[in-house]
């Protein structure tokens, strides 16, 4: 963390230091602006020099993100950011690697890379800006668009059942899973902080409004704040005005919303089993008219990067790296 003001010691970068000289080119009113501001505001908290931070993205509106962060960055190819970030993170454990992606990028073309990065628990922080639409290609439905979504490519309604990004991440064995809302800066910053301090893969879904092609997709929770179920570790899950509604688990393990009296679930983000987090991830606009935000799951699990680098260190201790010895390692013979 940065030193206190006026101490004379070297100070870490400020929010301004994370802004680049590039003109930000998202549509006016896009939710991405709020996320960018939150991230630039949060970055100094890491206390890390800028050169040790890398943002990797794929393709899509969200993927422009690295151009606006004064760190190292790669704007790569569609869906592949988790793969590229994996190679970078594993080979450079001194770096802090972030992936910025969208619903099409992460869940459609890059679905395979996402689930495998989460399964391996690579030390990367994945921010999925979910706007339930393809924005950069001008408004086709995405893998998170609700069934029946009418777009230019689905004039009479989409036919495929959407992914629930958090259910998917939990199913893929993610060790950290959270959700935030673009305009809720305080809670977004809190989730970013928790993700940043988590060791291993962190997956954060951010509800992001696309005001051009899918305006108001998240209004039920973005505008109607009483529909936000804030998850706080160790606290009973209550929401709505005066906490009149609560969330509890049914005997079959699924979650339900109840009104008034009752015993709400006390939230445990560190629960060794994934099922409570999965149950909460099923609470949506459609199933509950409300949705949880905050940290769903935060558990410790061996980190791929660390395991791999430990194997290297152990091998080096066992056997020196001598090229001559390697080449003449098989059956050799001499000719004079």
């Amino acid at each position, binding site marked *: 963390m940065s030193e206190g003001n006026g101490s004379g010691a070297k100070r870490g970068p400020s929010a301004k230091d994370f802004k680049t000289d590039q003109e930000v080119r998202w549509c006016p009113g896009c939710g991405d602006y709020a996320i960018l501001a939150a991230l630039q505001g949060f970055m100094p908290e890491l206390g890390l020099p800028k050169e040790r931070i890398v943002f990797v993205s794929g393709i899509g509106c969200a993927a422009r993100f690295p151009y606006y962060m004064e760190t190292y960055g790669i704007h790569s190819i569609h869906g592949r950011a988790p793969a590229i970030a994996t190679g970078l993170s594993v080979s450079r454990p001194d770096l802090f690697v972030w992936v910025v992606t969208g619903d099409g990028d992460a869940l459609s073309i890059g679905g395979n890379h996402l689930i495998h990065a989460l399964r391996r628990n690579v030390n990367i922080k994945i921010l999925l800006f979910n706007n339930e639409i393809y924005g950069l290609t001008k408004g086709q439905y995405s893998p998170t668009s609700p069934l029946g979504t009418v777009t230019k490519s689905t004039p009479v309604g989409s036919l495929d059942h959407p992914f629930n990004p958090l259910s998917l991440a939990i199913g893929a064995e993610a060790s950290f899973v959270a959700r935030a809302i673009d305009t809720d800066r305080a809670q977004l910053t809190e989730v970013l902080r928790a993700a940043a301090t988590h060791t291993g893969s962190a997956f954060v879904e951010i509800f992001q409004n696309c005001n051009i092609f899918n305006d108001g997709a998240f209004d039920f929770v973005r505008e109607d704040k009483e529909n936000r179920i804030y998850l706080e570790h160790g606290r009973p899950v209550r929401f709505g005005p005066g906490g009149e509604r609560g969330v509890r688990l049914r005997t079959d393990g699924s979650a339900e919303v109840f009104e008034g009296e009752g015993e709400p679930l006390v939230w445990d983000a560190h629960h060794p089993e994934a099922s409570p987090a999965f149950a909460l991830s099923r609470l949506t606009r459609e199933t509950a008219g409300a949705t949880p935000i905050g940290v769903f799951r935060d558990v410790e699990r061996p980190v791929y990067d660390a395991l791999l680098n430990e194997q290297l260190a152990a091998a080096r201790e066992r056997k020196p790296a001598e090229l001559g010895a390697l080449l003449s390692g098989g059956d050799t*013979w001499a000719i004079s």
Partner: protein
Amino acid sequence: MVKRVEQVDSVIVRFAGDSGDGMQLTGGRFTSETAILGNDLSTFPDFPAEIRAPAGSLPGVSGFQVHFADHDILTPGDAPNVLVAMNPAALKTNLRDLPRGGTLIVDRDTFTERNLAKAGYDSNPLEDGTLEGYDLHTVPLTTMTLEATKEVEGVTKREAERAKNMFALGLMSWLYHRPTENTVSFLERKFATRPEIAEANKRAFRAGYAFGETTETFAVSYEVKPARLRPGTYRNVTGNAALAFGLIAASVKSGLPLFLGAYPITPASSILEELARHKNFGVRTFQAEDEIAAVGAALGASFGGSLGVSTSAGPGVVLKSETVGLAVALELPLLILDIQRAGPSTGMPTKPEQGDLLLVLFGRNSESPVPVIAASTPAQCFEAALEAARIALKYRTPVYLLSDAYLANGSEPWLLPDVDGIPELEAGFATEAPGAEFHPYARDDETLARPWAIPGTPGLEHRIGGLEKQDLTGNVSYDPDNHDLMTRLRAQKVAGIASDIPELEVDDPGGASLLVLSWGGTYGPVAAGVRRVRDAGGQVAHAHLRYLNPFPRNTGNVVRRYERVLIPEINLGQLRKLIRAEFLVDAAGFNLVRGLPFRASEVQEAVEAML
């Protein structure tokens, strides 16, 4: 009984049996014994993609051919002098390659009605005259193996029977005076956790050797004197092992950690497996979820300052195209190794072909130049890997290195290089901005390479990506003139490598009007075919391309110097198309696409037809 010993100058042995008979192991051990004896040698394993096709069936036959000699040789040989057939199916599929008069050793115990039927024999070839004219030895291999191992405790009959390949190896070791100590110690190592299996195999091996000494069926044994190779220390090496060693050498010489992203695929997997064994060199091997992630992770590692490598074969390389395109735009070092196999699509996974040349040159969207290098022999794969790394690092570019299934699994003696004599490779990371501002797309005057500023370097923070970049600054640019400039700069950079690679050497004893131009893995058979033409009095020149993009700077002069140019390729004429387009030379092709390497005799005939 005193037996006659004959001196011969070269022998070609082929072991053939069921996939489960351990023919690759047997051939490998025979090769090791041969290498230690000091013969020059060349091997060609030929096996099906199916791990275990139905036992005794024709598709399940696996073969291993080894050519050894008292002089330098270039190929595993066109046709065997000796065929060891472990069952009727192996006899059926391999007999057509054995010339009349050749030595044929069969396990007669396996010639049962059932096995004969599986191999499609109506009558027993051992009895019906089919094998007349061959020097036939029918040996009860299975029975004698069981007899030799019956006193080993803890070994099932099935396990004992499986040692019959060692009986065959023992017999062949006697027949050609091969040293046996290393095979004995090899068996002890291989079966260290099951000493009783090691014992059974050793007994079978020794019994085979003793059988040769005592039986009357073999009246003569043969000696092949050591070859007069260049002085030095040798080992036998396959192409894939040499590639792995070359990559590690490039890592050591550049001081960059090696990162391999790979997805298992035939015939490239053994590079991943070899590199995974050398973590003490700081080698990180990442078995990815797919081919795309494999090369993506390698590129990510390159961005971070590793030597990023991805290995695959054609069906995987097609999936890597978009990432290679990104590497072209990012101008970062990246090696992609394509161990070519017969296609299209899944094709014939274990069989060699040269069908990916145009793919790696052009298989990307838009103007996307990538240097291409091709290895020429199994041992030369080592240098090829080093050279690919040198070009990638110096020019900040992805580089394709082409090998094939023939080089990958084939082996030859390798004169070990003096490791101190291998030149250092320069990573040359940017450490500070030369001016007030860092320009990630400023270029070196000579190489046109851009600076490689890796994360962690203070003050050089920058963003790169697949969108077109402004010259110098690397900022996103849609400016028409800038795009034209950047397109030309990327092309010039790769074209300029021609001044940094050796000229094309021509092997021309004089008087030739015909040039044979080959590339990649066909070097051995083409050079051997050319030798034969000359031995028969023909005049022919031979040049072999190891650089396919850019071509060596004198390539145009060479191909225009001859009246006629013949280009043999294991494809339908991909290099020929390039040579004709680039140099307006009416080159002819010699093309066979059989999933097999050329035979020297085939090349000889094709050349002679042009003389």
